[in-house]
């Protein structure tokens, strides 16, 4: 198999003496979709946030595209251009229109010309049915629309990998589908993705692999279908039962 796009070795994270993540090891290959599952408080969000440096880690090693990631500010600034991330709270910039939200990082961080970025942003918006919202402000959008814009905003940076941290968790039920569909499409286009989610049907549909996190350690790393048909551990089984799955 080709070299992993992202590989994590013996990663450990602690807040003071409180150990949150212990000995985390996994690889993500190009085009792969990995679902990161586990109970609340198992460390999923913390783990996904260490992958682009929003949370510092104390031990272990992170490699991206074959290169060791030096955990310092300058490296993270570079890496964040290649790893997009979308959060539970959509966090669009309310002082900018939808179009300006999308164009900000490509023009200011990636230093691309606005004339080049804008048509691309427009067509990305159109592809998720939001073409007519380009000039609106975030507060004029519904939660689901905002979240789709947040995903487009991350995609406009041409990331090599996307991190999704419970992106549907604070949406009204009727808004969830549109956002999930967008992620399914991305997966079909071979985007490499790590997805933290509580939507089990979605995880089963979209993920190639499941990482199951239990109390800060990965206790299962299995193909997705196997995880759902025959949960590999008692804890995973309990978890799926608790999700009515």
């Amino acid at each position, binding site marked *: 198999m080709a070299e992993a796009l992202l590989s994590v070795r013996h990663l450990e994270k602690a807040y003071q003496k409180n150990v949150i993540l212990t000995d985390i090891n996994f690889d993500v290959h190009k085009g792969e979709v990995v679902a990161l599952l586990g109970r609340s408080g198992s460390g999923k969000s913390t783990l996904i946030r260490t992958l682009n440096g929003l949370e510092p880690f104390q031990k272990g090693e992170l490699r991206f595209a074959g290169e060791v990631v030096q955990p310092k500010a300058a490296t993270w600034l570079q890496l964040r251009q290649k790893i997009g*991330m979308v959060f539970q709270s959509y966090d669009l910039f309310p002082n900018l229109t939808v179009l300006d939200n999308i164009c900000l990082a490509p023009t200011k961080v990636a230093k691309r010309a606005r004339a080049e970025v804008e048509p691309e942003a427009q067509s990305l918006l159109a592809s998720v049915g939001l073409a007519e919202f380009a000039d609106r402000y975030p507060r004029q959008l519904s939660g689901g629309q905002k979240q789709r814009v947040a995903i487009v905003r991350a995609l406009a940076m041409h990331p090599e990998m996307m991190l999704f941290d419970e992106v549907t968790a604070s949406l009204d039920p009727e808004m969830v589908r549109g956002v999930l569909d967008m992620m399914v499409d991305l997966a079909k286009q071979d985007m490499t993705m790590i997805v933290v989610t509580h939507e089990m049907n979605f995880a089963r549909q979209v993920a190639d692999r499941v990482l199951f996190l239990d109390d800060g350690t990965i206790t299962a790393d299995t193909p997705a279908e196997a995880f759902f048909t025959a949960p590999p551990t008692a804890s995973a089984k309990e978890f799926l039962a608790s999700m009515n799955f």
Partner: protein
Amino acid sequence: MDWTVIAQSLPQFTAAFWLTLKLSAIGILGSLVVGALVSLAQYFRLPGLRQLAMVYIEISRNTPLLVQLFFIYYGLPGLGLKLSATVSGVFGLIFLGGSYMAEAFTSGYNAISKGQLESGRALGLTNRQLARYVVVPQGLAASVPALAANVIFLIKETSIFTVIAIPELTNTALDLIGLYYRSNEYLFVLVVAYAIILIPLSVGLTWLERRVRYGTFGN
């Protein structure tokens, strides 16, 4: 009420009116500059400057303008710095107003959700870019109501300039009362003069708050 007394005093009051406006304007502009710098030093936790800003804010907010003016006008000459009454007044107003403006800016910056900073960082934006495109524009818009309240407050505070004999409105009124013992007439003009400045300004600032909000957040 004797209207001829009022009419005779109008040239003096007019001069005082313009002086009050002029000193207020300089004091307010200076306060805005000081406040903006102090608040940014605090928000971005600039080492050294941040502590200095904190000490300044505490001293400025917890001493009366009256005492600040006494210190500048009567105290500083003892330290070898002699300033005219007018300059002392303006400095005092800026010293007082700077901390109030800083707190107004800070409250605006603090209204910005932490998630926005995080999603901005996740896009690769530097702190400086975040400040320029996200924090400052929103912070300014959110702090307009507090800034506007400070503008009104600082104009009213110029009445304290009377203690160092700057011939602004209050000083002029008190002077005339002392000379001619016509307190009803002169106090009436004094109230009207402040109202002419403050009421339209207050209405204008409310309008500005709405405009800025619309211009910044589209609603």
